């Protein structure tokens, strides 16, 4: 019951706006850059220079483009898996933990059997990585199906368990006996590493990313599985009417996301880091959530969004060296981006309108019946 005022109202669009679906991520990126510039200016850094260091400089040298692709690969793999969850309205926030679980499971072979170097080793490591991620993702899925627990909480909490467990492994039982007490596992041998296929650092998992994009595009858009995911995500009652099981879909979506995160995890330790360390990733599993939404849960969109977010990691490192900015700036950027994406997404379904009301306006609890025709 406020007085006379002007306010912004959101009017529901009769149809989703296709223009806004494409414009929303771009608008979010623009707003993030503007806010970032203000943030830099406030902390006494020239915003132009800072944004250059952040977003342009990493693209000016080949080695750093390779670095960019290497960082983008796990983020995109995870994001594609998460898209299966989010499209089916299942909220897996624990990809970071599933990534760690995959890294641990896949590392068991090179750490426990360091001398095994046959052609089967690498495929087996990858499979165990996928299985490890799936098994870890199955925990929140089964808890939700069986006991109705909130998967957001359980999957998130399991991240910290996994991180502490790998920390303990790397410092304790799996520490390299010849490693001068550094908290790392023994380095994997060549046969246990993903081969470099291009340049100096581009490894095989770049191929996995491309395959995953194509397969996900096909499965989500053309198959009955993708159809089930979309129906259950949008209209659970219609999903039941179609004969689809919500519980089964929760488990399937979690397993897919966990498997992809596990693949990303083993690709990280059998790739760039070449060993198991106390931390497996700088938060790729969380960054992938942003990538999934920034990419509209569309495989190609997530590919592009993954490259952009990888850039913020690289730019953050550059800004630390060149400008002495805290490495937290990267997380601020990522957080802002997610915030703006979610905010801008409102514009896909609603159009804002400024309303001038001369009279008091109270709550309007009653809206026209949803079933009424127009």
């Amino acid at each position, binding site marked *: 019951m406020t007085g006379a005022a002007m306010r912004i109202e959101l009017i529901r669009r009769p149809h989703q706006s296709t223009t806004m679906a494409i414009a929303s991520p771009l608008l979010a990126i623009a707003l993030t850059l503007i806010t970032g510039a203000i943030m830099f200016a406030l902390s006494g850094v020239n915003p132009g220079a800072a944004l250059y260091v952040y977003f342009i400089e990493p693209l000016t040298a080949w080695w750093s483009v390779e670095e960019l692709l290497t960082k983008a690969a796990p983020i995109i793999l995870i994001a594609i898996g998460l898209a299966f969850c989010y499209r089916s309205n299942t909220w897996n926030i624990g990809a970071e933990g599933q990534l760690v679980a995959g890294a641990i499971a896949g590392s068991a072979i090179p750490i426990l059997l360091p001398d095994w170097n046959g052609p089967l080793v690498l495929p087996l490591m990858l499979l165990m990585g996928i299985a490890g991620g799936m098994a870890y993702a199955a925990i929140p899925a089964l808890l939700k199906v069986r006991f109705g627990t909130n998967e957001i909480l359980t999957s998130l909490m399991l991240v910290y368990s996994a991180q502490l467990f790998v920390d303990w492994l790397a410092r304790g039982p799996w520490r390299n006996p010849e490693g001068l007490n550094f908290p790392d596992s023994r380095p994997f041998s060549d046969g246990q590493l993903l081969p470099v296929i291009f340049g100096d650092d581009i490894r095989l998992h770049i191929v996995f990313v491309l395959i995953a994009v194509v397969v996900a595009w096909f499965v989500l858009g053309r198959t009955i599985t993708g159809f089930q995911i979309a129906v259950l995500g949008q209209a659970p009652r219609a999903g039941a*009417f179609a004969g689809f099981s919500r519980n089964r879909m929760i488990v399937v979506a979690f397993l897919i996301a966990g498997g992809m995160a596990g693949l990303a995890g083993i690709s990280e330790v059998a790739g760039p880091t070449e060993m198991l360390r106390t931390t497996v990733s700088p938060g790729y599993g969380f960054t992938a959530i942003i990538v999934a939404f920034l990419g509209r849960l569309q495989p190609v969109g997530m590919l592009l969004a993954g490259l952009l977010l990888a850039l913020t990691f690289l730019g953050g490192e550059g800004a630390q060296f060149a400008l002495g900015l805290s490495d937290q700036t990267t997380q601020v950027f990522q957080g802002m981006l997610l915030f703006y994406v979610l905010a801008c997404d409102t514009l896909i379904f609603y159009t804002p309108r400024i309303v001038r009301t001369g009279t008091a306006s109270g709550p309007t609890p009653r809206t026209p*019946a949803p079933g009424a*025709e127009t």
Partner: protein
Amino acid sequence: MDTAPSAKLERRAGDGTPTLEASQIVKDFGPLRANDLVDFAIQPGEIHALLGENGAGKSTLVKILYGSLQPTSGEVRWKGQPVVVANPAAARRLGIGMVFQHFSLFDALTVTENISLALEDKHRLDDLARKIETVSEDYGLPLRPSSTVADLSVGERQRVEIVRCLLQEPELIIMDEPTSVLTPQEASDLFKTLNRLAGEGCSVLYISHRLEEVKELCHHATILRHGKVVAECDPAEETAGRLASMMVGADVEALERRAAPSGDHPVRLRIAGLSLSKPHAFATALDDISLEVRGGEIVSIAGVAGNGQDELFDALSGERTAGDANAITINDKPCGANGITARRRLDAGFVPEERLGHGAVPRFKLSQNVVLTRHGTGEGLVRSGVLDFVAARGVVHTVTERFDVRKAAPDPEAGSLSGGNLQKFVVGREYDRRPGVLVVSQPTWGVDAGAATAIRQALIDLARAGSAVLVISQDLDEILEISDRIAVISQGRLSEARVASGITREEIGLLMGGAHDGGGDAH
């Protein structure tokens, strides 16, 4: 009815300033013009019917009058003064009340608490309860303020909505399809209340598809077609057929009924001693339901909403399975324990009451909604897990042609269709398979006369071609029009099915009130 035609004419003739007047209203939704230069006026004390097919622009006009939508152009005048109705709260402050087709009450709260939530002024609950009692007695709307809404019948819930309106002392009440959920007895009580209100000078804008009812109750009618006012008339002086043809713009075809096939067609749907507990606190348990539907016949289940119809539909479709496989038999195969896809494979089809969100996914294209119910029936819409959208679009085309589904694009989102057109699509999607057993709930709910006739004719044709058709409906006219046999559901129990020609409206009405167990609540 207690209002003589002469009195109506006087009232219409003696008009001064209309309570509410809308002139040259235009409302565009993108390229679609939902209201096209609509002129409309309602006099004090007038019960004014707003008629039109689905998609004719009735809801749009009403939403503009009630402030939920703003017109693209045109003017609304309240008692002669131009006004901008910015939102429903502003409408209520002017003195416009609305009773919706679907109630917006909280089941777990009492009548007083529910009404309290809608009021803007500060008030004490016990004062409010007294006011509710006074108003409800005054207007013949018996209501106990302390009752919990969950315990009320649908008719009583509607009274809560009406009392809620009356407490704001409206000068115009808008009623959207008020009798669609009432027994004949309850409807006649409602008419008394409306006549009483009109007698006191309150205007009533009455939206209904039931033309007989409009003829009986309303003083004046405005008829919309394709967004334009095509006629105004005194409904008492027209026949229902004339009114319907004004709405549709052509003569409505009469249903073509062939005699039910005599002799012994096989039983295709058998329900035997089906009992199911309540799925949630405000649902109805099913109690020992038995029924047989033979090929070639339409059997209808009448009843007031909330007596177990939804639960029965879910049990028949397999969305909720019964423990006992023999509780439900389709085409001689026990399937009580099987899910909906398995039952569809036994050549059954299902059409639920709720079109959007249950029968169809609103944001899905029609072709995707074809896949929704026909992905598992081995028709080639899904091959080795891959969807064939070309085939699905073929089905959309067939259904569109057969049922005259009107849409703006070849394959639009389901949510963009008007209610009647979407209902034709949802029924047509199953009809297109020619299922041996069809279970359909509220086949013509909220659907205009033209669409309703098309749908009912399809049900009759399907039955006469040898299918068993079971219709669950609250529309008694519809049931009497199409059924071969009729059963009545009340409090989760089903009466014996009786031959339609040998049962009267009154008998059905009594069964709907629960007369067969003698414990029905009287109202």
